[in-house]
């Protein structure tokens, strides 16, 4: 188990049978915004379909996208792919106006796994986690902090959080994990 550092060094923050919390390695992240009329073209440029149901996700290789709002998606990619994506989108901008904004450094991601993963989330998240389908996600709130919650499995989640809020949120998850294993 590692102490949380200011650099958010990837690795285990909490290890245990009930629940583990791991900081994930840096990746590429974009906020993607486009009107309905340009959605297909922008999706093609990025290399995957932009889903229309809020909370739905699509994936193609390293690239994964989640629909966060009627005209808003979050795109995650390999750390080295951001320049390619920026270029591909710039190429269609004139015909398909959109906003592609690099937010790779804005947030960090923690992976929460284990039989008590849902219990751990419920210490701060008011959503009914049971209602988030595996393979979906949502923007929601944990202890007053905006997060994006990805449900990857029955008991496997990722939480994206803005960097400055991470010490508070991760500290809370550590406290909660200790409590769940007590």
């Amino acid at each position, binding site marked *: 188990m590692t102490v949380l550092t200011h650099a958010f060094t990837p690795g285990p923050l909490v290890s245990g049978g009930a629940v583990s919390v791991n900081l994930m390695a840096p990746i590429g992240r974009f906020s993607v915004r486009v009107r309905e009329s340009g959605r297909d073209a922008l999706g093609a440029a990025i290399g995957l379909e932009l889903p229309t149901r*809020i*909370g739905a996700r699509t994936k193609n290789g390293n690239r994964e996208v989640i629909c*966060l*709002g*009627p005209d*808003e998606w979050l795109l995650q990619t390999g750390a080295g792919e951001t320049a390619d994506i920026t270029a591909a989108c710039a190429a269609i901008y004139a015909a398909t106006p959109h906003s592609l904004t690099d937010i790779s450094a804005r947030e960090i991601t923690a992976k929460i796994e284990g039989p008590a993963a849902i219990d751990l989330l419920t210490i701060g998240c*008011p*959503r009914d986690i049971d*209602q988030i389908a595996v393979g979906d996600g*949502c*923007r*929601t*709130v944990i202890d*007053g902090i*905006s997060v994006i919650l990805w449900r990857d499995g029955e008991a496997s989640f990722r939480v994206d959080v803005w960097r400055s809020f991470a010490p508070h949120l991760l500290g809370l998850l550590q406290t909660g994990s200790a409590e769940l294993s007590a």
Partner: protein
Amino acid sequence: MLLIRCPYCQQTLPELEFTYAGQAHVARPDAANKQISDEEWRDFLFIRTNVKGPHYERWRHAHGCGRFFNAVRDTVSDRFLITYKVEDPRPELSDLLEKSE
């Protein structure tokens, strides 16, 4: 803590994801193209219905899809009669009350 249906997400979700955004259907007068009197501008800025009962109001799904939307909420019971998209027409109160019976 209330439960609020987001008309964009099509889900009923905890109030903590939302922020209140004041009375609905207060249109900003078109001062760019028209002469707007002091009284009109005052009304736009400050004059609100402050009803006891069904209130047309705005919310934002701030920790969610980020959309502003409209709602009719009874300020006595805290019950929502309806939530609807910004672009949707203002629903008639009589229809809503009939439906909620």
